[in-house]
């Protein structure tokens, strides 16, 4: 058993939300640079170049890469031999977000669904925690923008739809989204589970660094097949036409009920922000 003071969580989360919004990860920079070489549209190519330049300005001038600095989602793996002391886990995370969004000059983007009154400090935070063996606490801090989230979809397909049905729905979702979620995007696909599990898997799939292959060779092949179909759509960078609509498709799959084939599709814009913390 290990004691861990929650004040450390606050400090790390604060740093993570600022870093995530100011410093685009190396995986995304590599993917954007690679995409410049693939893009056939001159305008598309120019847009991809500007996105790389944008990331550079954000990092050097300490300004967020995108004004939509997101709502914060935290995926947590809590070791069952960790004893959290000094306060509540949720409060510690939210205090980190509160401080990070203030000190980092990040936009507060949460409001009441009907009155639209801003909560003022970018809380609450959406926390998905699972208990795992061991003494480590692992957090993935993900500021998620509204544009891609609004274009995300969930389908409860009949089992007869099979892979063909899943593929059609994913490609259709990306084409219908068109320019709205700021392509080039990353597409997270959660297959199986139930209603909420497939959505959660779709979001969790986005945590994998872009450019790293799926561990499962069958899913890897399906990801490649989907990416090709998506990029044949011609939507292109910013939806203005081109060969690079998505930079990657990430799939997670778990068993489903014998009556169902749930599919969650979570679309992530090119400002793909996620920081991993181990405590």
């Amino acid at each position, binding site marked *: 058993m290990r004691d861990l003071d929650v004040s450390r969580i606050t400090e790390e989360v604060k740093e993570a939300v600022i870093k995530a919004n100011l410093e685009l990860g190396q995986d995304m920079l590599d993917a954007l640079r690679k995409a410049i070489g693939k893009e*056939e*549209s*001159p*305008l*598309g190519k*120019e*847009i991809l170049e*500007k*996105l790389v*330049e*944008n*990331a550079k*300005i*954000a990092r050097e*001038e*300490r*300004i*967020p*890469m*995108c*004004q*939509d*600095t997101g709502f914060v989602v935290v995926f947590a793996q809590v070791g069952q031999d960790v004893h959290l002391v000094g306060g509540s886990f949720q409060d510690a995370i939210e205090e980190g977000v509160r401080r990070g969004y203030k000190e980092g*000059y*990040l*936009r*507060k*983007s949460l409001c009441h669904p009907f009155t*639209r009154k*801003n909560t003022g400090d970018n809380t609450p935070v959406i926390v998905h925690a699972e208990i795992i063996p061991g003494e480590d606490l692992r957090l993935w801090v993900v500021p998620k923008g*509204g*544009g891609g989230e*609004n274009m995300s979809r969930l389908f409860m397909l009949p089992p007869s739809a099979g892979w063909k049905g899943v593929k059609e729905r994913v490609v259709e979702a990306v084409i219908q989204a*068109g*320019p*709205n979620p*700021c392509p080039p995007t990353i597409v997270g696909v959660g297959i199986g589970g139930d209603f909420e599990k497939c959505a959660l898997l779709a979001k969790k799939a986005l945590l994998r660094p872009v450019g790293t292959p799926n561990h499962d060779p069958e899913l890897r092949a399906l990801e490649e097949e989907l990416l*090709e*179909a998506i990029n*044949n*759509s*011609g*939507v*292109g960078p*910013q*939806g*203005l*036409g*081109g*060969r690079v609509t998505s930079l990657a498709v990430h799939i997670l799959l778990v068993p489903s009920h014998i009556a169902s084939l749930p599919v969650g599709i979570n679309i992530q*814009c*090119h*400002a793909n922000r996620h920081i991993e913390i181990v405590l």
Partner: protein
Amino acid sequence: MNQPIELVPPLSDQDVERLRAGDRVLINGTIYSARDSAHKRLAELIQKGRSLPIPLQGQIIYYLGPSPAPPGKVIGAAGPTTAYRMDPYTPDLLAQGLKAMIGKGKRSKEVIDAMIRHKAVYLAAIGGAGALISKCIKEVRIAAYEDLGPEAIRELRVEELPVIVVIDTQGNNLYEEGRKKYSRSG
């Protein structure tokens, strides 16, 4: 690609009628930022026949809710937000003489019809390039609805703000044309 065309508001019908979907444009001068909540308020005032806190005749509205300005800067990240959420309010604003909108993403048929009727254009800035775009914004003043925070209407003085004409006054649409050009059956 052609050389960019310069636009300086206030714009006349002729200024926007010469623009074609796919043209690149650089904007110089004063524009206004407004997004969801500000649009709702403006449309309500128009419906009631009241006067507006900003002029619309010949003006450009940028769909923007910037991040806060860090010390020493006039504004934070300042990229476009998705435009369809402003669609329900846009025909009313176009009827008041609004000549151009800067955003990203698709527009409704009602908006495109109103753009053709009132001679206006829809321009796209690069979504997610908030740090880059902020460098084109030289001065910022809150023009109305300060209580809305990031959604307040701001008067922005911009220099060489780069945008692309997506929908022109004839209803040509680069989102449709661009996709058609690069789609492949696979």
